[in-house]
């Protein structure tokens, strides 16, 4: 028996090392060191403007970083690489936006099937069948031929999740997926996310839904002013937060 910490199976899905990012003189991410294990659900929380969204957007390189590395699937996402390779890497990281960003000129089923067809070269009828199955999974099979403008916010976000899943990504990133929703629609989106987590998807979510964090997360990252101040399992984080800033954050939430 060896004491090796990282056999290929146990290598983290995502590892961030010494990540720095600043806009001019203003640092937004400071010395981020963290990793997400395969199958792990991590919830990133923290006050507004703390860099949560920026952090999650650096993971599929929608934001550039100034130094450090973000390794996914053995590849440094921020290394200099041909555009083709970056596109391929991005296609295997699902991303769900706060504002859904569905393609309004395409029907729901086209939204879900177009990227497998155009990016991966999947045959249209195969992609179409798969899209219908995914829509069924998020409870929207009957809306396949509707257009995004005809759907409610919650329905649009569920389509957006199906669209990301269509690329069969091993990792899903969620950037405040319920923040743009009316309160009564938050539940339907969270329950889709819960079922994903239950199926063993590796997930990284920025969210203000502390109930979801408590129930579903394996670990919480608490971030403030561009720094990860605390990482802990949810029960520990919510009951006995160690960092004073985290204590204050949780106290403010209770009010």
């Amino acid at each position, binding site marked *: 028996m060896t004491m090796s910490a990282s056999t290929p199976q146990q290598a983290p899905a995502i590892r961030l090392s010494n990540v720095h990012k600043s806009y001019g003189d203003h640092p937004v991410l400071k010395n981020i060191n963290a990793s997400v294990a395969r199958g792990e659900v991590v919830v990133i929380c923290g006050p507004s403007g703390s860099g949560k969204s920026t952090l999650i957007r650096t993971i599929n390189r929608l934001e550039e970083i100034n130094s450090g590395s973000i390794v996914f699937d053995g590849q440094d996402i921020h290394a200099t690489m041909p555009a083709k390779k970056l596109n*391929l890497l*991005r296609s295997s990281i699902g991303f769900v*936006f706060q504002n859904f960003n569905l393609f309004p*000129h395409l029907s729901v089923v086209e939204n879900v099937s177009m990227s497998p067809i155009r*990016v991966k070269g999947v045959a249209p009828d195969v992609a179409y069948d798969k899209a219908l199955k995914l829509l069924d999974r998020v409870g929207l099979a009957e809306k396949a031929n509707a257009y995004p403008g*005809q759907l409610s916010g919650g329905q*649009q976000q569920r389509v957006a999740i199906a669209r990301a899943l269509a690329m069969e990504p091993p990792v899903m990133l969620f950037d405040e997926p319920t923040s743009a929703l009316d309160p009564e629609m938050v539940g339907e989106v969270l329950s889709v996310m819960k079922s994903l987590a239950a199926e063993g998807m590796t997930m990284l979510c920025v969210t203000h839904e502390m109930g979801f964090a408590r129930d579903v997360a394996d670990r919480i990252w608490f971030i403030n002013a561009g720094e990860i101040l605390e990482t802990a399992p949810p029960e520990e984080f919510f009951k006995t937060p160690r960092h004073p800033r985290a204590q204050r954050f949780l106290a403010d939430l209770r009010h």
Partner: protein
Amino acid sequence: MITDIITIIKDYWLLLLIGQYPNGPLGGLANTLILSALSIALAFPISILFALARLSKWRALRWPVTALVYITRGVPLLMLVLWSYFLVPLLTGADVPSFVTMLTTLVFYQGAFLSEVVRGGIVALGHGQMEAAKALGHSYLGAMRFIILPQALYNMIPSIISTFVSTIKDTTIGYVINVPDLTFAASQVNNQLLTQPFQVFLILAIVYYAICWSLTKVANAIEQRITRRRAGPSRTVVAPLAPSKILSEQP
């Protein structure tokens, strides 16, 4: 007066329709339509290329095209036409037919205007659509082709149509470098009659109006077909149900 007009049309319809053809070059309305159609058909793709170049991250692409667009837009078309008419033969020694000179100038001129319309349409979409496309693994050009341009061009149909219409109207400028178009034919007729300029140029105005009006009608029909197919245009992502119903003119 109406009898005068009818008489003029009776006497000169062939000249107005095809110019001196087959004894001379093709002219009249036929040539105006060919010149307009070619200008639009070439200016449209060029405007998309110009717009993409102006949005490019590469300076080598962005700067020259930006300069070209600014200069072209800042100078009267007539002046550009005269420049190409007198300078191109001088510089190249080639004998360029006036039709080609007019076509090329018009394509660049209207391409420059149209590129600003296209660029505006792309910029107005915001970052969200391109980010979503990138996150799904689309290449920049793939995202442009399948996601950004279909929306940007659709949203810009009214402005694109007015540029097309002004392209048709601008073909009349070809008159000054002897492009044998409808205006040229009408002025030949006027020179022969001498006493009826109002009648002759009224015919000219009516014909141009008819062409531009039909183009607008065709474009509106296309726009409505797309709108119906999309069953409810929604530029904002969180489009509420009610407004999209109103916009789509659906029963």
